[in-house]
């Protein structure tokens, strides 16, 4: 298992918050590549997730703004009710188009655009959830030569999303949440 280069992008839905908190805590105080987190949640007070995670994370966390340059040692949270897209020039775009898989942000959109922008230097990680989101995105990551990591459905809080992705897209690694920091 080797450390990630380029960009790390993490998608999660129901039951993934604890996994993300564990994962972030495991990063300790070392240098990490840029990390984008796309998490389904109820629309509502926007910034609370970024605030919560910044308390738990040793790496600075910010809610992504449109045109943000993607920089290492920074964790970007997709804002509620916008899709987050990764541009070829390694900046972030936001988009308020139709929901996909009943979701905005959509994990598929973020994974697909990140795959095109980062190619082989992308690591995409899909966590717990009760939705089919993420599977199409992971296929794109594979097609562009990136690395696919799926949370072990057996230990994920909700197995459906990682299981679905594992069956339809496949993974380079299947890991428990506490093992994921080792590959970032």
């Amino acid at each position, binding site marked *: 298992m080797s450390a990630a280069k380029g960009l790390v992008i993490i998608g999660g839905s129901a039951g993934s918050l604890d996994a993300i908190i564990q994962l972030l805590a495991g990063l300790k105080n070392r240098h990490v590549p840029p990390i984008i987190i796309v998490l389904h949640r109820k629309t509502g007070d926007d910034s609370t997730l970024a605030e919560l995670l910044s308390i738990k994370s040793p790496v600075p966390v910010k809610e992504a703004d449109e045109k943000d340059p993607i920089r290492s040692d920074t964790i970007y949270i997709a804002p509620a009710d916008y899709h987050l897209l990764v541009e070829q020039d390694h900046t972030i775009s936001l988009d*308020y188009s139709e929901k996909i898989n009943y979701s905005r942000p959509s994990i598929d959109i973020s994974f697909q655009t990140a795959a095109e922008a980062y190619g082989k230097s992308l690591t995409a990680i899909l966590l717990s959830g009760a939705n089919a989101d993420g599977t199409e995105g992971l296929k794109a990551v594979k097609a562009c030569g990136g690395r696919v990591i799926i949370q072990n459905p057996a230990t994920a809080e909700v197995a459906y999303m990682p299981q679905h992705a594992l069956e339809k897209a496949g993974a380079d690694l299947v890991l428990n949440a506490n093992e994921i920091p080792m590959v970032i």
Partner: protein
Amino acid sequence: MDFQAVNDDNISILLNDLLEIYGYDFNEYSKASLKRRINRLFTLDKFPSFAEMRYTVRTNPEYLKRFIEEITVNVTEMFRDPSFYRVLRETVLPTLGTYPFIRIWHAGCSTGEEVYSMAILLQEANLFHKSLLYATDINPGVLERASKGLFPLSHMKGHSEKYIQSGGKKDFSSYYSANYDLAKFNSELSSKMIFSTHNLVSDHSFNEFQLIICRNVLIYFDKDLQAKVFKLFEQSLDNLGYLALGSKETLRFSSVAPNFKQLGKEKIWRKMA
């Protein structure tokens, strides 16, 4: 890296066609979103090849309308971000109310949900009689729908909740009548609305306004185009006029920023110079 049917080169070709044949310039739109929407449409309309799509866009003006409408994002709702509308009610409208006449520009209004929201606010503030709402968009099709004041009845529950959160005190359903699966908004609301096509990329200022509302439009533009549009808005605003943007958009880094002052943490700026 490209796994999509319509690749980056194809998109440059299409954008060139749009500019040369029709005068639509999408070169300064954010690339990732544009590419996704063009590929989405390619699948939706079942084109056998990129060449076929290009041919249709070049030669069929009816299809062009659909093409422009589908590659731009036309998702909007009433009273989106209720806290924003609360600030309009409590801070902006009382100030505008001191003027003899109020001109408001909804730039990129899409199907008009925000324009109707504003008309409701103006009625409730007793300012409607002296207001005019200019609603513009690049797509003639969405403007036609907006002018009819017809919206899906199934969305009314959500709109009503946001209306109440924004400080609305009335029964929201008093603003429309149900007509099968559509809600028809009272025609009085649209009596003060003027709908017109306007392209923020290429068209100039056409009036002076006390309030410009342009929410979730600039996120699709690159920085250079954003800068141009901010200049256009500055020119189109009266001194002490207001500019309102979407919840993830900011004037902060633009060259006109020194001439504006932000109202608290809402995305509303007031022109000070």
